C-alpha cells in the first residue's frame, strides 16, 4: 500500500512537471551570420517558431528574411553615403508572452535591434508597455488584425500591419446575407482572437437580421477532432457555419462537417487560409469547400507582382521545407520590411527611432504593382492602410475577389480610390467599410 500511494502522489506531480517542461524556452535559433562590409542594422523578430502556431510564425519570418535578402542584394540602405546592410535576428517565443519579453531583452541588448516584429496579439501587448523607455526605444511592427487595439493601446512607436478584421466581418456577413443565409452556427477557436472575432461577427449578423443558432468553441491549436461540436451545431439546422482559427484546425472542421453530412456554407475567420486548406484537403477540396467565404487565396490576388513573388518564395522557402505555401503573412511582412528600410533612408538615420517612425508616413503609399502587398498610407494611430480582400468558392470555382477599403472617410474618397483601383488592376470589386465603425 505504501509504495502504491507514493506512486500515485508522484503522478500528478509528473503531469505538472511535464506541462512545465513543455513550456520551457528552447535554445535560441541560429542567427543569420553575415560579415557587414559597412554598417549593420538589425531587425528583430520574436514569434512562434515551435509549438502549434509555428507555421504561422515561420511564414511571417520568411517574409522578413526574404525582404532583407532582397534589400541587401540591391546594395543595402544608404544614409549620407554610408552603406548599411540589414540583418534579421530572430528568437522563438512559442506565442508565450513571457518568453517574448525575454526575447525582446536579448534583441535589444545583445543584437541591438531597432525594430521588433511580433505576430501574436497577446505577445505584442506587453511589448507596448516597454518600447518607449528612454534610451531603450524600439519600433514595434505589430501583426494583428484585432480592431481598435491601436486606439486602446495608443503607442507612437508602434506600427500595425494587417487590415483590422472589422472589414472582413462586415464584408463576409454582407456576402453571407446575399446568399440568402440567415441561420449561423459558430464553431471557432477558443483563443482570445477567435472569440473576439466571433463575438463581433455575431453582433453584426444579428444587427443585419440573422440568427445565431449555436455558439461553440474548439481548441484549433491543440485539438484534432471537432465532431462533437459540429454534431451539436448541425442539430440546430444552420445554413452556414462560422469557423476558423489556424488553417490546420479550420481544414479539419470543414472536412469533419462534410463527413458528418453538413451541406451548408462556411465563413472563415481571416486567420484561416483558403489556399492552404484547399491544398491540404487534396482532390476533394472544391467539393468540401463549396459555398465558402474566406480571405482571398494569394494566387487569386489582383496584384500583378504575386506570380513572381510566389515563384521566388517557393524556391527560397517551400522547396527548403520552410513553408507549405506562400501566405499573406509572408507578403505583408515582406512589404513592411521594405517600408522600414525606406523609412530609415528617408529619416537619414538607423537609430533615431522617433525619426524613423515619423518617416514612414512619407514613404507610403506602396502599391501591388511593385510589391506583393499594398499599403496606401497610415492612420494617425499607426495602422497601415492595408487592403483586405475576400473571395467565395461557388460551384467548384473561386469567384472574383472583393477588395475592402476601410480608411476612406467619405464616399468621395472611396469613389476616388475605386476609380484608381479599376484603372490600375482592371477587374476590381471594391467595397467600403467604415473604420472605426460608426456608433
Amino acid at each position, binding site marked *: *500500500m505504501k*509504495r*502504491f*500511494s507514493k*506512486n*500515485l502522489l*508522484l*503522478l500528478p506531480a*509528473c*503531469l505538472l*512537471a*511535464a*506541462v512545465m*517542461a*513543455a513550456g520551457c524556452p*528552447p535554445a535560441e535559433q541560429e542567427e543569420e551570420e553575415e560579415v557587414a562590409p559597412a554598417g549593420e542594422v538589425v531587425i528583430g523578430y520574436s514569434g512562434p*517558431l*515551435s*509549438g*502549434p502556431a*509555428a*507555421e504561422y510564425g*515561420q511564414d511571417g519570418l520568411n517574409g522578413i528574411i526574404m525582404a532583407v535578402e532582397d534589400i541587401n542584394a540591391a546594395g543595402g540602405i544608404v544614409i549620407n553615403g554610408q552603406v548599411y546592410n540589414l540583418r534579421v535576428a530572430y528568437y522563438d517565443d512559442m506565442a508565450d508572452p513571457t518568453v517574448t519579453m525575454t526575447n525582446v531583452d536579448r534583441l535589444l541588448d545583445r543584437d541591438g535591434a531597432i525594430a521588433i516584429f511580433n505576430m501574436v496579439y497577446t505577445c505584442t501587448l506587453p511589448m507596448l508597455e516597454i518600447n518607449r523607455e528612454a534610451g531603450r526605444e524600439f519600433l514595434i511592427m505589430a501583426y494583428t488584425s484585432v480592431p481598435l487595439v491601436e486606439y486602446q493601446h495608443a503607442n507612437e512607436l508602434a506600427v500595425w500591419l494587417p487590415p483590422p478584421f472589422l472589414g472582413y466581418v462586415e464584408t463576409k456577413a454582407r456576402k453571407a446575407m446575399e446568399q440568402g443565409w440567415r441561420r449561423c452556427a459558430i*464553431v471557432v477557436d*477558443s483563443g482570445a482572437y477567435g472569440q473576439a472575432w466571433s463575438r463581433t461577427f455575431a453582433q453584426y449578423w444579428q444587427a443585419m437580421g440573422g440568427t445565431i443558432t449555436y455558439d*461553440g*468553441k*474548439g*481548441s484549433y491549436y*491543440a*485539438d*484534432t*477532432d471537432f*465532431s*462533437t*461540436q459540429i*454534431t*451539436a451545431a448541425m*442539430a440546430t439546422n444552420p445554413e452556414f457555419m462560422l469557423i476558423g482559427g489556424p488553417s*490546420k484546425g479550420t*481544414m*479539419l472542421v470543414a*472536412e*469533419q462537417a462534410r*463527413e*458528418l*453530412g453538413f451541406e451548408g456554407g462556411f465563413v472563415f475567420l481571416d486567420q484561416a487560409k483558403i489556399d492552404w486548406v484547399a491544398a*491540404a484537403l*487534396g482532390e*476533394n477540396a472544391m467539393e468540401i469547400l463549396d459555398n465558402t467565404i474566406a480571405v482571398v487565396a494569394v494566387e487569386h490576388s489582383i496584384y500583378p507582382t504575386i506570380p513572381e513573388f510566389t515563384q521566388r518564395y517557393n524556391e527560397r522557402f517551400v522547396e527548403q*521545407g*520552410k*513553408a*507549405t505555401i506562400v501566405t499573406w503573412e509572408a507578403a505583408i511582412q515582406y512589404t513592411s520590411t521594405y517600408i522600414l528600410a525606406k523609412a530609415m533612408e528617408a529619416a537619414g538615420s538607423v537609430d533615431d527611432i522617433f525619426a524613423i517612425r515619423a518617416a514612414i508616413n512619407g514613404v507610403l503609399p506602396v502599391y501591388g504593382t511593385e510589391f506583393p502587398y499594398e499599403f496606401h498610407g497610415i492612420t494617425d494611430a499607426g495602422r497601415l492602410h492595408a487592403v483586405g480582400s475576400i473571395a467565395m468558392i461557388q460551384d467548384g470555382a473561386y469567384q472574383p475577389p472583393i477588395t475592402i477599403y476601410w480608411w476612406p472617410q467619405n464616399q468621395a474618397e472611396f469613389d476616388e480610390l475605386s476609380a484608381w483601383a479599376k484603372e490600375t488592376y482592371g477587374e476590381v470589386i471594391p467595397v467600403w467599410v467604415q473604420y472605426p465603425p460608426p456608433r
Partner: protein
Amino acid sequence: MELFFQQTINGIMLGSTYVLVALGVTMIYGIMRLPSFAHGHFYMLGAYITFFLITLYNFSYWPALILSMVVLFFIGGLVERIVFRPLREQSQISNFIAAIGILLFIEHMVTVIWGPHSHRIPNPYPEHIYLFGASVSQQRLIVILAAVVLIALLQLFIKKTVIGFTMEATAQDREGAALVGINVNRVSSLTFSIACALAAAAASLVAPIFVIVPGMGSLLVMKAMVIFILGGLGSIPGAIIGGYILGLIEALGGGYISSEYKDVFAFGALILILAIKPTGIFGKGAA
C-alpha cells in the same frame, strides 16, 4: 436520438485512439513502474513514418501502417535498452526526467528535420456512410474496428502465449519472475516495443483524418495519463474501459453541456474519480 447516437459514435472513435495509447502507457508502467510521458511522441513518430512510407516510397496504406508498427517496435526496444535499462537501479525521478528528455528530443528532432508545418496522409477511405441516421466516415469506422482487433490480439497474446505469461508474471512481481528464470530485461524491452508499436498503429489509423504535426502527441499523452490513473495504475482492463469512458465523456459532455469545457470534463473526471476511489476504477489497492 440520432444526435445521441452520433455523439456516441464520435465518443467511441475518440476513445479508440485513447485506448491504444493508454494501453501502451499502462503496459510500460505495469512492467517497469515508469510513467512514460514520451509515449505521445512515439505516437507522433509513428505517424511521420507512415506518412513518409506512403509519400516517398509509394507504399499503400496498410503495408505502411504495419511497417511503421515494426519500425516503432524496434525504436521502442532500442530506447528501453539505451535509456531506461541503465536507469533501472536509480530512483523513479531519474526515469521520469529521462522520459521528458526523450519527449523534448523527439519533438525538436522532428521539427528540425521535417519542419514545424503539418503533413497529411491521403485518406484511403474518404466516403462516409449512414448508420441509423448517423454519418460516419469509413476511415473512422476502420479506426474503431482496428482498435477492437488490436485490443483483442493484445489480450490473446498476454493470456495465451508463454511470452505473455512472462510479461504478466513480471508485472506482478519482478524479483519473483527473475527468480523463476524469466529474463526480465528482455520482457521490459519487449513491453516497450509492443507499447510503441501500438502507439504507431493508433497514430497511423487517425493520421488520414487528422493532421501530422510535431506536437500532435502532447495533449494525447496527457489524456492517456488520465486514463491510466482513472483505470487504476497498470490495469489493462482499466485502460480499455477508461479510454472509452473518457472519449464518451468528452463527446457527450462537449455536445450536450458545453464544448468550451470539453477538456475540463476530461480532467475533471480524473479528479472526481480519484476523490471517490483513489486507486482508480480497477485499482487493486496495492501494487
